[in-house]
């Protein structure tokens, strides 16, 4: 397999969608959701099971696939034994997967969260985009509202374009690009020698700066007939957008992949994606832009 194909591969279209099969009660709805996506996006499906291959499991999977209507000509099943996280990540790399679909609980118990569950650990490490489904349905429902993180980052343009690509294909009309405004140390900087109008001006300038950056990104995007709105919100990155998505009752939150390698310290001193993973507000798409 030529791994160089992965480098600089655009974050969309999703040509290969992989889904992790665990034979848990959520497996059927997760597969159904993945199947819906692959049908709409014209992607081939890759079903991954990490564990022993038995005739019972094979039979169960066949039944599930036929019940959901997964086309065997457009799908492959890979069985492999090994450590789940690393094996899934390796298989995704080898098979040039564009999107990996996983089922995930909204909230893990404390111990599991700090130790890291399979779905969340994959989200932190994956070299492809990952979709975490919090409430997968055997009869998948249409996404109506998408919230996208518009943070100032070179990856954001790819994330927004990927969200627009999804919105267009899934016929989502409401897409909100959110920019979280948080300036660490600002309260301290303005505390002793700024007059009230100066403080107001400083805050206004910071908000306008964020707005301008976002507008520049949006100008480069083709939104088609998707109704795109942008919003500046105050608060800690990750936490603020998570709360916004919950309040807005969004169906999907789209964010950039993490910039750094995340470990347990990032969970203790949470920031950005870790706030979202700690309590998923809705389905979460982490876009890996491969830049």
């Amino acid at each position, binding site marked *: 397999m030529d791994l160089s194909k992965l480098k600089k591969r655009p974050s969309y279209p999703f040509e290969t969608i992989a889904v992790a099969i665990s034979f848990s009660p959520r497996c059927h709805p997760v597969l159904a959701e993945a199947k819906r996506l692959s049908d709409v996006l014209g992607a081939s499906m890759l079903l991954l099971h990490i564990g022993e291959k038995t005739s019972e499991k094979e039979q169960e999977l066949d039944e599930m696939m036929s019940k959901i209507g997964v086309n065997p000509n457009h799908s492959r099943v890979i069985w492999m034994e090994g450590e789940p996280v690393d094996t899934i990540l390796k298989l995704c790399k080898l098979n040039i997967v564009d999107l990996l679909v996983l089922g995930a609980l909204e909230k893990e118990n404390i111990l599991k969260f700090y130790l890291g569950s399979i779905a969340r650990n994959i989200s932190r490490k994956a070299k492809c985009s990952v979709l975490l489904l919090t409430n997968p349905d055997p009869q998948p429902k249409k996404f109506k509202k998408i919230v996208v993180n518009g943070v*100032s980052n070179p990856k954001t343009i790819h994330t927004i374009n990927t969200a627009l690509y999804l919105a267009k294909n899934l016929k989502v009309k409401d897409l909100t690009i959110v920019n979280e405004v948080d300036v660490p*140390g*600002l*309260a301290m*900087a303005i505390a*002793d020698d700024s007059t009230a109008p100066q403080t107001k001006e400083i805050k206004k300038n910071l908000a306008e700066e964020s707005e301008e950056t976002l507008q520049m990104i949006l100008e480069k995007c083709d939104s088609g007939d998707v109704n795109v709105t942008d919003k500046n919100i105050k608060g800690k990155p990750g936490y603020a957008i998570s709360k916004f998505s919950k309040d807005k009752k969004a169906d999907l939150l789209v964010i950039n992949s993490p*910039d750094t390698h995340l470990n347990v*310290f*990032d969970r203790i001193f949470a*920031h950005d994606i870790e706030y979202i993973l700690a309590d998923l507000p809705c389905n979460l798409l982490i876009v890996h832009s491969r830049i």
Partner: protein
Amino acid sequence: MIKLAHNELIVLLLSISTMLIISRIFAELGKRFKLPVVMGELIVGIVLGPTILGMMYPDIFLYLFPRTGNIPIALDGIFSLSVIMLLFVAGMEVQLSLVLKQGKVAVYTSMFSMVIPFFTGFAIAWFFPEIFSIPDEQGPKLLFALFFGTALSISALPVIARILMDMNLFKTNIGMVIIASAMFNDLIGWLIFSFVLSLTNKSVNDHFSLWYTVLYILGFGLFMLTIGKKIIDKTLPWMQTKLSWPGGVLSISLGICLLSAAFTEAIHIHAILGAFIAGIAFGDSVHLREQAREIIHQFVTNFFAPLFFVSIGLKVNFIENFDGRIVAIVLVLAYVGKVLGAFIGARLGGMSKNHSLAVGFGMNARGAMEIILGTLALNAGLISKPIFVALVIMALVTSLTSGPLMKRFID
């Protein structure tokens, strides 16, 4: 219970109001020349203190700031409360997650900008104690060397934040690296300084006691930054919605600060550490509203900070205790250690040569934090007045030159 007499109360109120009003006037004048507020406050202290007023009008000086009776005790209580509050708000702006978020460049910059000045200061103090008139005995020499290393490695987040804001660099990569690294410097610096302070009354040969102190400091820090932080995070939304706003949050937050300070003082670590760590636990909460944060900052920065910084000039005669040689040595060490350390760290983290130098000069601002550190060390008998004066001058010079020097490498 001992009470202030009628006249004593009047004098106390007069001295506090004099400090507050005159320091505000100086701060506003200084603003026109782009001078940091702390500089105006220090000048007021020098003018009102033994250096000028005490020399020219000793009667007025002793009337306003008597050396005996209950007033000095009352003022000392206020100054102690001021430094605790200052450390609390300094802690409130420390976000350890920012260091993790900025990745290896922030980790390298904060490490090297801490380690190189620390060891430079430690080595000079250890091998050449005579420069600072420190007796060549293991105990005092070790304590001073530890302090001096810490004094050179600390940064001043408030000054740095202000410089970055004025230069419109707050949200840039350079700005974030500087802020994150300064936050980390402050945390480690205050932890080490608390350790040094707690040792001042102990024998450095008492290894059992030493390890207990280290254990207490680390244990307290770890508890507050994990479990304590979680508890604050869980209760803050309730406080902000169920208690009167913003009074409820103010009372509780300042109460937690004092409680934490009392605890660390009780276990023989200085109260400042409790306040600083409580500030981190409180300020890092995602639920703390911007308005509450700003009110706490305004209250402390505009009431307690002037009192504290003016009080410095009241205690020390800056002319009598000015030693040009010590000032020069401290300045050179401060510039070389910090700028070089941060430069190396930023370069290793992948920044360009010019940007790394900008980070180095940005991190070099010591400002108010250095002065607080020096004052506490002076009060604890760790350093002499000439060294304290040198540290204050270094704090002011580094703060004043930080912005212009940074600019050279950013343009």
